[in-house]
């Protein structure tokens, strides 16, 4: 026997009232006739329009074009360092090294773009806009902050971070490239970038004692290391740049290898 058969008249009236009330409430929450909907309802301030992330198929070509774009980030940065004379004082002797690094990146970009073209893709011959906007430009802003007494050192720190970023990018795509030969080609370049990073690490933190990982006891942050771990890491790259605060601590900037929204898809042009 159904339970509804046992309902009293009073209970039936209560259920009816609740149903009518609930329907009215839900109707009030819905879109109203003649009222223009606004994206700003229930928000403080204006909400910028959403821009969908660039997307597409992730192919070997896309991964290699992304790697090429990072090479141009490095080329542009070294060109600026050389042309603007940002290495001064004791760091001026690094100018030859900066030129060598720049030339290596030019060669790497050409090699990667050659692979891209051989796979049927279009060479990408400019920097990764997202890497530039999120990492390099903020870093340069910190470096050139008035009162920063370590401009040259910070330039080297930025270069060191970019070399590590390039190394990690190549190592990171090994798991995604479909061809073993392409993986070998990628790591042939990563091998060079890692060596660049060591030379710069030894400038920032020289000596045998700083080859392996160490920690700055005053700040608790990891010191720059030539060989920071036994295996090549795929981790956030933290770099300290700019004017130090009263405690002597510089602002930190975290860098990560390009992800889905930083890839150079087929439709991305320079």
């Amino acid at each position, binding site marked *: 026997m159904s339970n509804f058969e046992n309902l009293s008249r009073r209970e039936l009236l209560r259920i009816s009232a609740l149903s009518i009330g609930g329907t009215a409430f839900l109707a009030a929450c819905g879109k109203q006739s003649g009222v223009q909907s606004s994206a700003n309802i229930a928000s403080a301030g204006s909400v910028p329009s959403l821009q969908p992330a660039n997307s597409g198929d992730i192919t070997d070509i896309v*991964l290699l074009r992304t790697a090429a774009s990072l090479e141009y980030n490095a080329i542009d940065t070294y060109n600026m360092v050389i042309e603007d004379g940002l290495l001064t004082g004791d760091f001026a002797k690094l100018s030859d090294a900066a030129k060598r690094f720049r030339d290596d990146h030019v060669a790497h970009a050409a090699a990667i773009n050659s692979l891209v073209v051989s796979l049927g893709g279009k060479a990408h011959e400019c920097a990764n806009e997202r890497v530039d906007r999120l990492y390099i430009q903020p870093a340069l802003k910190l470096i050139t902050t008035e009162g920063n007494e370590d401009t040259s050192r910070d330039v080297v720190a930025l270069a060191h971070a970019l070399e590590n970023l390039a190394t990690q990018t190549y190592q990171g795509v090994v*798991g*995604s490239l479909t061809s073993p030969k392409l993986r070998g080609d990628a790591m042939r370049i*990563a*091998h060079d970038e890692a*060596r660049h990073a060591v030379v710069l690490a030894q400038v920032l933190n020289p000596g045998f004692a700083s080859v392996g990982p160490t920690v700055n006891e005053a700040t608790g942050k990891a010191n720059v290391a*030539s*060989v920071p771990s036994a*295996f090549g890491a795929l981790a956030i790259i933290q770099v300290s740049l700019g004017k130090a605060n009263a405690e002597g601590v510089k602002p930190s900037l975290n860098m990560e290898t390009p*992800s889905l929204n930083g890839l150079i898809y087929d439709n991305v042009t320079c």
Partner: protein
Amino acid sequence: MPIAKQRAPRSAPPKQPTSNDKQLLAFAQEAELAVHDLYATVVSSSKFTGDEAAMLSMFTEHHKAYAQAINGLLGKEATNRRNESIYQTYVGQLTTMQSIYATLQALENTLAKTHIDILGNLEGIDGAQLVASIITAEARHAAVFGTLPTLSLSSALDNPAASIAPASSAPATPETTVAP
């Protein structure tokens, strides 16, 4: 979402090492064990002290870690024996402090080139990712010997070594040389 996960449905190379991969990885492991033993010989000679000795001990342990990690992929197919040819070729060169650094750098350069060749033939993703992570570390080891005790930019950046990877792993590029 990580790129590899996004990509996975479209292309699916094997995850585990193939039988050909295992032969290449076995060679890599034996080479790592030989280099580990060469470093251990240097460390036990007490020619180096303080921070230099600590750095060399660290590199020694790194090579042991590489051999152990490869062992994890090979399982019971791992020989866990050093490559005697590599060991015997280099052990006589570990005499003076200068020749020791030159020899260790040559070894690191050789391993890096060899692993790049091997990587270019590995089908399995697990092995490829492991070898890739070893390549960047060994490139760093080699560069350290070019920066310390004094910086030589070409020594730090250039790798003149030839690959000693088994002939079957040689990619068809002019950049690599294959030893018999």
